[in-house]
């Protein structure tokens, strides 16, 4: 279990660094575009597109961060239907289903990326292939499958959802 915990800690640190970097890059590129337009009368060519790609990759990487802090949106009104003694088996089922979902999504997304690459689709304004950006979908969902799979195997390392108070503070 400690190896799983260590793996998740390292993974989270990596995701956090990437997400914060991409967030900063996205904000900077949009701002630079505005400043350039106001000073020179011309925006930075392709800047909005770059910002959008940074946003998509950052948000998808943050999917894992949301999993790691149990912040995915979930209706909770049915939680009280089961007795407390069922909590651990229920958590395993919950995370097992999530793992299955992530694996299926990763597989389908992988096939879409392969098709996009084969078709040679490019971003119109940047003139670069879009499949490397799309690759974040299968990659992130595969990593999410591993993460939720570990939560299913070792419910003790599954994070508790933050209280609403923590979320707001």
């Amino acid at each position, binding site marked *: 279990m400690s190896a799983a915990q260590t793996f998740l800690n390292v993974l989270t640190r990596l995701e956090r660094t990437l997400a914060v970097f991409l967030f900063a890059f996205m904000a900077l590129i949009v701002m630079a575009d505005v400043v350039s337009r106001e000073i020179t009368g011309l925006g930075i060519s392709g800047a*909005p597109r770059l910002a959008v790609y940074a946003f998509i990759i950052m948000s998808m990487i943050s999917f894992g961060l949301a999993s790691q802090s149990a912040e995915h949106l979930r209706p909770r009104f049915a939680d009280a239907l089961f007795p407390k003694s069922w909590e651990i088996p229920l958590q395993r089922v919950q995370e097992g289903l999530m793992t299955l979902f992530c694996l299926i999504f990763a597989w389908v997304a992988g096939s*879409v990326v392969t098709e996009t690459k084969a078709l040679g689709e490019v971003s119109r304004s940047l003139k670069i292939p879009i499949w490397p950006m799309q690759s974040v979908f299968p990659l992130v969902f595969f990593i999410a499958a591993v993460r939720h799979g570990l939560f299913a195997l070792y419910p003790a390392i599954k994070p508790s959802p933050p209280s609403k108070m923590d979320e707001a503070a």
Partner: protein
Amino acid sequence: MSAVALSFGLLVLLVLRQRIVVLLAVAAGALYVLYGDGKLAYVVLDAWAAADKEVLLSIPLFILAGNIMAKGSIARRLIDVVRIGTGPIPGGLAIATVISCAVFSAISGSSTVTLIAVGAIMYPALTQAGYGRSFALGLICAGGTLGIIVPPSIPLILYGVITETSIADLFIAGVLPAILLMTLMAIYAVVRNWSAERTSVDWPAFWQAAKKSVFAAAMPLIILGGIYTGFFTPTESAAVAVFYAVLVESLIHREMTLKQLEQVTFETAKTLGALLPVLMMALSINTFLAFEQIPQQMVEMLSAMVDSKAGFLLVSMVLLLIIGCVMDIGSAILVMAPLLTPLATSYGIDPVHFGILMIVNLEIGYLTPPLGLNLIVAMGAFREDFLTIAKAALPFIAILAVGLVIVALWPDLSLALID
């Protein structure tokens, strides 16, 4: 038959504690497999198309700007000005609370952040000044909800994105209804606290506080002024808001370090990691529904049952009130807006007006059990039990309901400021 099986399957997943992103993805996949071309790949393609939009950039940037200011000293500085200025009015401190909530939510774009930031200062001030505990709790919970109607509002952006309605129009349409709700709350505060202690304005202190808050107060003017004068798009104004917030908090107020900025960015990224996949799946379902002309079929079905605009408004508002009690506002908008807005349009309701109605309606959900977010946050913030806070919010639910009826019956209140 397959529709019943799909609904049952989703219910089972819900009971087995699956996240909304899973429920929406399963629904989207099943719709394509059962009723479409049978290709699951369309879900991923729709998800990519949904995320690949420049207008979405305003969401992370506004959330980040709000979070930066919530961690800094902007709330405290603004409240000081309003508190001193409203001293001579009956119920002045309560009115100061409502105005502070509105002003701060115009900066932060979030109800819960407003509740915490303003409530932390005003709740003790209200109770120490002799205002009833229940009144103070209800007022702060309700004042916090103004955050979703006062622009820039994330729920308004979500509505704009998913229904392809102009976000700038939605922002401007939210101004007068927000002022109406503020006025209704202020009238109630005056009537309820007519005999409360009043203080005269300490002008030197007022000017001192005003000087300290000038950079904070300029924020809504820069954001909204920039959008409405055509200087910035909503997305660009969001980037400007981030840089202005960083500049003010780190260089002028000197209350935020680089480490704190990294922490705030990380917290915002987590929020987006939960929000964007849900948005993508909701838009995938939306694309399927539009392709299969489901809204048109629903219009025909509903037209047979409800033959008037008033009837539709009544049915949709009751439905949204119920949904607001059990679902968070982001999910409610993403699921319901694509279904209801085409129907509203078919009954001659302007989509901008309907968007404002939807947001004001779901605003009430912040105060209604079992999932009233502001009630839950207030429970932790003010160390009160849930029932006490829920009871305290009751008069304010009635006030918001009156506001909703006025906004519904008076479309010009939302549309008057739009060209």
